Structures are given as structure tokens and as C-alpha cells.
């Protein structure tokens, strides 16, 4: 099987979701989601808690299963085929709300684990790669510490570097700043803005509306498992069409 990173990124569609439906038992968490993400697009997904934002994001690298519909990532349709799931995961980086760094490994080892074991990269090459990304997220000096010694903001930047070390075409951010103390939010957002300027495809679940205004091509508003609005940030913030979107913005913006 051809690894996705070898494909020329000519295909203009990065992610295509069609008719996606998911239930948790009786609870209908995602309803008829249709979404096409173009290469290089930067999308911010917002909406009240429990609206299915994170679940949608987790379906894209198949951390969550679904019952109906299809997701195609970089030309690969996600099925039950494990090899294909792993291929998609190699191509899609993810950053979690709780960082989820591996506490038993140093910062550097966190970053080199997947390149060494998944990409079969020689250790020295993987370490050079990891150091270059740690440099980019501005914490090269923390490489040999354990995650527990770092602040929340530093940990989240390590998590971003760890995902980038797999050279993904697509990055998913699941509420990356929600678990951070207020004074650390900016350093993480700055790192993400830099990434956005490099042209990587990004899907960000976040309530950071300033970030959305600054970097997003498109804002999605979700409620009760549906995408109610999909608009460019200016239009969305100035003239939200849906009433629930208006109510939501009123709550978080004042």
C-alpha cells in the first residue's frame, strides 16, 4: 500500500465527510454531517458543549467509530481496515485538550517515539527532526526534561511538536487551550498561528474567537450534532444567521 505522505498533495480536497451519523446508544450525537475541507484550509469549529464538535474531530482519525456515512481523508476512505486506519493516522496529527504527553518519556522521547516506531526513522535522524520542531515551538531547552516538570503551556507546545514530527498533512486540535491557565493560552495560540501561516490544513475545536478571526478561513457552528452554520469569520461574527449561533456568540463574547 502506498503511504499517503508519498502522494503529491495535488488532490485539492483534504477531508470529505458525507452523511455522517453517530449514536452513543440511544443518543444521536452526530446528525447528517457533510463537510468538505480543502487543502490548506483552516477551520475553527465552535458550539455549545455536548454539540458533537470533539466527536466529529475524533471521527476524522477514527478514534471514534460511527454507524452511517463516510469519511475520506487524503483520498483514503476510512473503513474497518486497520492498515488503512493506521495510514490515515500517520497522516493526521492530533492535539488534545489534556495534552496527553507520555509521562514516562522525556520531551524528546515523546517526539521521537512515533517517527522511530511508525516511520522507522533512524534514532539520530528522528532526534534531529524532534529538536527542530521543539525549536519551532520555542522550547528546545526542555528536550531532556519529563513532561511533569513543564508548565501546561509548555506541555501543549510539546504535544504540537510531537504531532508535527510525523510530518502530517492535516492537524486536528481538540480544545487545545481549554485546560490551560489563562496566562498560558497566548503562547499556545501563537504557536498555532505560526503553523497556520505555514499553510498546513487545520481543524480546530475552540472557543478562542480572537484566534478564529485571525487565522480561520471558515468557522463552523455546531449544535445538537449538526453543523448549523459554515461561514467565513467576518460574516459569522457580524451576521450570524442562525438564532442559536447568535445566542451562543452573545454568551461567550461579552
Amino acid at each position, binding site marked *: 500500500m502506498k503511504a499517503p505522505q508519498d502522494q503529491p498533495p495535488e488532490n485539492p480536497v483534504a477531508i470529505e465527510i458525507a452523511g455522517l451519523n453517530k449514536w452513543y446508544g440511544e443518543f444521536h450525537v452526530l446528525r447528517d454531517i457533510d463537510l468538505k475541507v480543502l487543502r490548506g484550509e483552516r477551520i475553527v469549529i465552535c458550539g455549545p458543549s455536548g454539540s458533537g464538535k470533539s466527536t466529529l474531530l475524533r471521527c476524522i482519525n477514527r478514534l471514534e467509530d460511527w454507524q452511517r456515512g463516510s469519511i475520506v481523508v487524503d483520498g483514503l476512505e476510512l473503513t474497518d481496515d486497520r492498515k488503512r486506519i493506521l495510514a490515515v*493516522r500517520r497522516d493526521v*496529527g492530533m492535539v488534545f485538550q489534556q495534552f496527553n504527553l507520555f509521562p514516562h518519556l522525556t520531551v524528546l522521547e515523546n517526539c521521537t517515539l512515533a517517527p522511530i*516506531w511508525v516511520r522507522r526513522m533512524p534514532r539520530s535522524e528522528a532526534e534531529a527532526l524532534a529538536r527542530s520542531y521543539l525549536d519551532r515551538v520555542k522550547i528546545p531547552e526542555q528536550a531532556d526534561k519529563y513532561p511533569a516538570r513543564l508548565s501546561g503551556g509548555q506541555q501543549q507546545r510539546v504535544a504540537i511538536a510531537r504531532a508535527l514530527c510525523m510530518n502530517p498533512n492535516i492537524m486536528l486540535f481538540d480544545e487545545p487551550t481549554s485546560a490551560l491557565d489563562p496566562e498560558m493560552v497566548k503562547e499556545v495560540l501563537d504557536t498555532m498561528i505560526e503553523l497556520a501561516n505555514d499553510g498546513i490544513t487545520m481543524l480546530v475545536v475552540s472557543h478562542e474567537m480572537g484566534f478564529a478571526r485571525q487565522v480561520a478561513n471558515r468557522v463552523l457552528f455546531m449544535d445538537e450534532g449538526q453543523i448549523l452554520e459554515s461561514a467565513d469569520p467576518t460574516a459569522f461574527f457580524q451576521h450570524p444567521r442562525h438564532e442559536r449561533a447568535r445566542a451562543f456568540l452573545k454568551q461567550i463574547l461579552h
Partner: protein
Amino acid sequence: MSVTDEDFGGDRRNGVRRPPPAAQRGAANWARRNLFSSPLNVALTLGCLIFVIWAVPPLIRFFLFDAVWSGTDRDACIRSAASGACWAFVRAWFSYFIYGFYPVGERWRVDLFFAALALGLAWLGWLRSPQRSLGAIYFFVALPLLSFALLHGAPAIGLAIVPTALWGGILVTMVVATVGIVVSLPLGTLLALARRSEIPLVRWVAVAFIEFVRGVPLITVLFMASVMLPLFVPEKFAPDKLIRALVGVALFASAYMAEVVRGGLAAVPAGQYQAARALGLGYWRTTGLVVLPQAFRVTLPNIVSIFIGLFKDTTLVFVVGIFDFLGAVETARGDPLWAAPNTTITGYAFAAAFYFACCYGMSRYAHGMERRLARSRGAVKRPG
């Protein structure tokens, strides 16, 4: 006990870091706070003190000052039979306690085995030793092969075969305990993983094995292994008596180990699995590189507890006719040459001291490890 307000009195300047007041420190103060803080505590402290004064000096006198240290037979022991222990008996039987009937000319092989075992334990047990993963391979692969060649013999390299019927004493205790440890950790881990498997058949087999073995006493397992097996297998093909006991002990320990490791697996947050999966790691790599290292850290004290239990349980192989250390003491105390009232108690005291030293050592190790881990944990936020 808390410090009263007067200890801080009049010294509350803002923002200055000061050492704690002198009244909090010092041995006398420690004693006052911990031993004599209330009438009940005073009574308990005095009670314990009286007990120690009553019990300890006679024991020391019996086992050290009034004991007989040298002699060639029971006459030496009888001299002090009423008042002291007879260490001459232990000295005379000492090499039997260690080697059993292992041929005298070949005993260097046993010594080499003890040395190789000690090296493996130090390599794995000392966290900062170099190349610990190599140490794990040594302990779980090289050491068993080396031990087999040394103890059983390997005619190809000039080591004569020594039948296991001649093995005995601490040698057997160590072999049974080590085999139990070397087998139960990996096998127990596999069983724990199987019990959490998404494949129903795998899960059911693991549950059935674990629950069956845990529901049966070790003695029963040993009797079944040594008495029932020959009924089904022709005598010619029946495995060696010691091997049968080893299999029984190893399977028994594995079932307990599985439950302990399962607890450790449950303690690893779901976010860790998700992060590993999101990076493209498959099941075995997620398990081996991310989940198990964390699970073992959490359960290390419990794993050592199992080892302590296993070490003491090795004495049960005596019931199927294998002479481990305690069995050797049993045999020796029946020797008419040394029949004296104080040889039995001396032999048992020696055995108790040996088991206590080994188990207490393991326990202290686990305790130290627990404190180390408590220090290095923290700060990482857990999801949920």
C-alpha cells in the same frame, strides 16, 4: 500534633522566609509529640517499652550469648539445651542447607548460578543501571538458559548432568522462586491483556484460567501436578518431578500477577491510548511502548508483594517430596547424630531469619520504589 500559636508568637513579618521554630525540631521534641502527647499515648508507650524489655534480652541471650557455636555432634548442643541455641548444628549442616545433595565437586556451578542471579537482580532492580533493556533480555532469556545449562548440566560443553533429585536447600528455593518470577511476569501480563481484549474468546479463556487458578490452593495445584499428571501420561514421558512443581508454581503465580497488572492497566488514563493511537501506533506498540511502562510503574509495589508471597509459597513444594530450604531444615533436624532439644528451634530460627531477610529486603525495595515514583509523578493533568 500541631504546634501551638505561641511558637509563632510575635514573629509574623511579611514575606520573610524563616526556618521553623526551634520547638518543632530535635529528638526530645519529637518524642514529646509522638510518644507522650496524651495520657493514652503515655500508657501505650510505657506498655510497649515494658514488653520490649521483657522479651528482647532473653531472646538475645538464648540466640547469641548462651548459644553453642561449635561442636561435632549432639553432645555439644545438650550442654546448653536449656538455655541457648545450638548453632553448631546449623554449621554442620550448612552446605546441605544450601546445595542439598548436589555433588560436592560440582557445587561451583551452583555458586555461579547464584552469582548470575544476583547480577540479573541488580541489573534490573537498580533503576539507574546502564542498558536496562539489555538487562531485561539477560534476566528473562539468557539467565534461564544459562541456569539450566549450569544446574542441570550440558554434556556438550562438559558439564555432567545432575539429576534434580539431588538438588536441595536454598538452591531449590531460589530455582523455584526465580522460575516463578521469570515466568509469571510475562505470562501474567499477557493474561491481563487478554482479559481486557476485545475478542470474546481470548477474554473468556483468560478469565477462566485466572479464576480457576485463583480459586484453588497452591497445594492442590502442586498435588495435581505431581500426582495426577502421571496417571494420564506414561511414566516414561512424565516430566521430572521438579519441573512439574515449577510449572504448578509458575502458573499459580501468573494468575495472581495477571490481576495485579490488570489493576495497573486500568490506572493508565484513556488519553494515553488515544494519543498513542493518534500517532499511528498499533495495538502492540501502544501497549509495549506507552501503556505497559506506565502500568508497571504504578503496580511495582504490588508486583513485589506477589514475589514475596511466591517466595514464601516455594516452601510448599516440600509436600510433593522436593527438598527446598525449609525441607532441608526438616531433614536435618531429624538426624539422630544431632538429636538434642535445642536443634529444632535453632534450625527453624535459622530458616525464619533467611526468609525474613529475603522478604524484608524485597519489601524495603518496593517501599523505596514507591516513594521514588510518588516523587516523580504529578503535574501531568489527567483527563476526566
